[in-house]
């Protein structure tokens, strides 16, 4: 018996596979038209010459990338130095998005665990509560937050009225405000995928771990986290990537000093002051960074044999 090897696979009948590849046709059309085509356009635009009233001139140019990376002085004829402004904006964005992801994970994981371990109806109620903020437009929610945290907003007024502080705490137009906005906007994107993973988690595994002398902490680290990892990874990607490109929170809560990539790109396409090729180039650099990060992640997973 010990020599017989059986795979744990499932058999699949041909009867229920429908029209096969045809089922994906609508998806392919939508992705092709609304994703690949615009991204392709941006890629091309990033290599064109800018037109001063917005728009492009169809002439090949590396000026946009050059402007991103190098400072050539006011007239463009100085020896090139590294341009730190945009790299700084990118760095700040990555840092903010990373922090938002970590905070969302710290708050989101216990929340998701709590919801997934409730019984029947309670579970649905809690899930419903998590999605309620989405009934209000993100713009409105971000503006509300601006009102809440400004110097004359309710938080400061209550704290002063209660005698906790004598001067308002300056929160608006700080990196803290941006972080608060990002964290708040994307928290449900962390909760929901982790919830889905925990929901499928076999709690007998925790019992087995405890039975084999594992403490609660060891069980979390060696058994629970590896089991719900797909949900954690999905949640992190769903928080990190949109946070990186967010422009509402930095714009409304962060002001000019807390510029992030999203705002930088948005500005290039707004009104007559913009620079389309530069905005396109910044988008391409952002996209490349994200893809490279995901590729490294996927490779590390494959080496561990998880795929």
């Amino acid at each position, binding site marked *: 018996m010990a020599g017989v090897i059986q*795979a744990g696979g499932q058999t699949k009948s041909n009867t229920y596979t429908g029209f096969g590849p045809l089922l994906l046709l609508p998806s392919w059309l939508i992705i092709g038209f609304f994703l690949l085509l615009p991204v392709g356009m941006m890629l091309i635009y990033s290599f064109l010459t800018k037109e001063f009233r917005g728009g492009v001139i169809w002439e090949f140019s590396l000026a946009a990338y050059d402007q991103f990376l190098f400072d050539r002085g006011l007239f463009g004829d100085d020896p090139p130095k590294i341009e730190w402004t945009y790299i700084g904006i990118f760095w700040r964005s990555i840092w903010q998005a990373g922090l938002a992801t970590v905070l969302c994970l710290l708050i989101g994981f216990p929340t998701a665990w709590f919801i997934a371990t409730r019984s029947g109806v309670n579970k649905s109620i809690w899930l419903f509560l998590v999605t309620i903020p989405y009934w209000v437009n993100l713009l409105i929610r971000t503006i509300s937050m601006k009102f809440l945290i400004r110097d004359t907003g309710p938080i400061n007024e209550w704290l002063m009225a209660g005698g906790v502080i004598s001067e308002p705490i300056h929160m608006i137009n700080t990196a803290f405000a941006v972080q608060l906005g990002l964290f708040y906007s994307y928290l449900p994107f962390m909760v929901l995928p982790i919830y889905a993973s925990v929901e499928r988690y076999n709690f007998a595994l925790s019992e087995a771990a405890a039975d*084999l002398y594992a403490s609660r902490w060891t069980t979390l680290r060696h058994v629970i986290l590896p089991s719900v990892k797909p949900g954690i990874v999905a949640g992190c990607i769903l928080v990190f990537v949109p946070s990186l490109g967010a422009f509402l929170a930095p714009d409304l809560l962060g002001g000019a000093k807390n510029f992030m990539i999203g705002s930088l790109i948005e500005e290039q396409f707004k009104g007559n002051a913009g620079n389309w090729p530069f905005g396109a180039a910044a988008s391409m650099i952002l996209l490349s960074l994200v893809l490279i990060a995901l590729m490294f992640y996927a490779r590390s997973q494959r080496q561990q044999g*998880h795929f």
Partner: protein
Amino acid sequence: MSQTPTDIAVDVQNVTKRYGTTAALANLTLQIRDNEFFTLLGPSGCGKTTLLRSIAGFENISEGTISLFGESLAGLPPNKRPINTVFQHYALFPHMSVTDNVLFGLLRQRVPDADARKRVGEVLDMVQLSALAERMPSQLSGGQQQRVALARALAPRPRVLLLDEPLSALDLKLRQEVRIELQQIQYNTGITFIFVTHDQEEAITMSDRIAVISEGELQQVGAPRDIYESPSNRFVADFIGETNLIDVTVNSVNGDTAMCTLADGTAIQCKSAGDATTGAGHLSVRPERLTLTASDTGDLSGTVKRLTYLGTDMRITIELNDGTTLTARMQNTDDTTLPDRGDRVGLQIEPGAARLLTD
């Protein structure tokens, strides 16, 4: 290691477990000896798994005490109890190889790495899985997974091993093989096994002693033979093996024998279990101890209703004159003469085979 178990491994004293107002275990007391293969047997929902989980530490008992080799387990979380469990659905860690699964408990006990790996090799040998040590659980068959679960629970050398219906997911042939192996492993390692099952055949063939549980209450504890041949009440007689229950009137009880009258007036002497009283009662007679005789002879008479071919023997269903149906078994040999359906027959109860039971 001593093969005459004397010490008490697990001492369950007056244990009650309530969920809300329903009691899953009702004032249950039993002692499990060191080095024995002990089975908790009962229908599903009878509380046997609750008792097992209480010993493991996954359930908090409402009243009573559970001690392990004389020391109370109260307040000890599962990870502090020198007890391991083979779970019903194995609960193997899906992201770890067979080796890492078996290694898990040893590493938590801080067994040095080299020793731990050596021990993993030994237990995998014991369950004949050495060839599959690097596989992931998803690449194993149900039987192989069951062996990994057993190896994982044996590796830390627990004082007591709990097995929660570990064979229920296997097919019949494999189940029979694994029964023998489990018995062998228990004998070789000398670890006390507490085995939970609802399968009476499994319990009878594997155990040193069996506790029959119904509705949270202990019905009988004893060796398989005691339980089969001297069931203490109607539930045990009915649950273990096949039996016929015949309504009788008890005329007198004298120690462990009683005089009864069958429905048609025939008087019969039988063994009685403990607290029998005069009045209405039930006789339990195993089907293999009823013999068919010519019509109007023997202790009972009735009509043949059904003949069922079972391979080694023949099961004959007979309806008595008062409507009770009884089952008799006849050996399937060349010179067996079988009755036909509808024949009038007599039934002879083998002397000493009838047992008077309380409800």
